[in-house]
């Protein structure tokens, strides 16, 4: 499912290129969550932020953080990916995620379609191994646990633990039937 934010802002008569304030964020999130309610388990929701220059931290908290937290619920797991981010949006999101991590003992990470200013395909803190896995899956689209472990020269057990955490963060997908094949978001 692709959600194009600038189309939502048109419908809601919200002026862009800036998405600012919590109240605006709440309005946009309400619209998105109504759409997302009917998605299938395991689906990827791509948020297209083209034409948006700034999403302030408050608005980011109300839209992106909420959506990611919703995706991480066990009842109906889904995945979130961002695309066409401006540099300022990336920066504000990054600082929101850093703060979240620092004060909640919990990481928040989101996959991006485009490479970020830090040369990653995600925003939020990831370990070196996680970063390598994200890159590997991006190139190969999907891979078995054994292939990933072999590529990283690590044991399957170690990589399985890492992949389990990444799945919890919703930055990697797992084939529900085999539980052994992982794919990019």
């Amino acid at each position, binding site marked *: 499912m692709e959600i194009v934010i600038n189309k939502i802002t048109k419908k809601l008569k919200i*002026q862009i290129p*800036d998405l*600012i*304030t*919590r*109240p*605006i964020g709440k309005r946009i999130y309400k619209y998105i969550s109504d759409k997302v309610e009917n998605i299938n388990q395991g689906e990827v929701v791509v948020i297209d932020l083209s034409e948006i*220059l*700034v999403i*302030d*931290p*408050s608005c*980011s*908290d109300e839209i992106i953080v909420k959506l990611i937290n919703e995706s991480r619920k066990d009842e109906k797991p889904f995945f979130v990916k961002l695309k066409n981010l*401006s*540099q*300022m949006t990336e920066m*504000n999101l990054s*600082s*929101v995620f850093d*703060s*979240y991590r*620092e*004060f*909640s003992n919990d990481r928040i990470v989101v996959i991006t379609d485009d490479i970020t200013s830090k040369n990653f395909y995600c925003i939020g803190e990831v370990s070196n191994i996680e970063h390598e896995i994200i890159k590997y899956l991006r190139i190969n689209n999907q891979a078995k646990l054994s292939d990933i472990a072999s590529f990283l020269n690590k044991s399957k057990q170690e990589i399985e633990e890492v992949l389990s955490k990444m799945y919890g963060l919703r930055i990697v997908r797992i084939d529900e039937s085999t539980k052994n094949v992982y794919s990019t978001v």
Partner: protein
Amino acid sequence: MSSNDENVLILPDCCKDIYSFENIIKQLESVYEKQVKILDLSRISFVEPFSMVSLLLLGRNYLRKTGEKLTLINVPLIILQYLARMDFEKKGIFKIQQTLTEKQKLKRSSFSQKVIEIIDIPNKERESVKIISSVISLFRKRAKHILKYWLSDQAINYFVTVISEVCQNVFEHSLDSGFLAIQTYNIGKEHLVRLVIVDSGIGIEESFSSRKDLKYETGAELIQMALTTPISSKRNFGYGLCQVNSIVKKLNGSLYVRSSKSSVAMIHNKKNKNGAYSFFKNNLPEFPGTQISISLYHNRN
């Protein structure tokens, strides 16, 4: 500082920078004690934006407390022209006896778009969101003039974030309305842009009073905490002031926050081996609410 007439207070020439306005705040107690009704501005040689909007707050507080407007007299022409240009008079908070002729008024041309005139930030969420959106829209239109010496897409977007986050605090936390103004001007050997957002609400310490888990000893310590850690009075985290400080650091500017009886200055453009110079003050004369000034500097040489 009073003249022979006890109802008149001659203001000292203390509107030149954000710190010297403190000398005017110090006299507030005597304004009420001596039932001052008139402020004589004859000694004022320069008014910068923070002092201007703080003076507006002072007048509004007086109006709310006494039901009467303070009168401004002997305002030097150049100051009167500036205040008129910035819509100070239009706020209807002071009585100003002098008027400007059409010829004396400063023109609002494209060359004078280095300002955003004083704008009211309401304390109602819906209205405030509309105003903030329109301020940002206006800022974007004038950004190439306002940020002339610091111009880049990134600097403009940084300012948009700062304006949005600080203005939100007015309606979210202060429980009062406020004012915003922006101006680029020259002072000494520097070009300076100053963004000021002020309110006369409950102040930072009072807004955090329900957070019993936060440990701090002074108001300045709490302000510093709000600038450096993502604390919030209403929810688990708040990113606003922390991100604002982070942006001011990236822009190599300075940030001044005064709230009730405390103030913190973070001067990122002047660093020592430990980082930015920071100044903390407590036990200042009470001045309700929170007043924030963000400044960028550029050497004229």
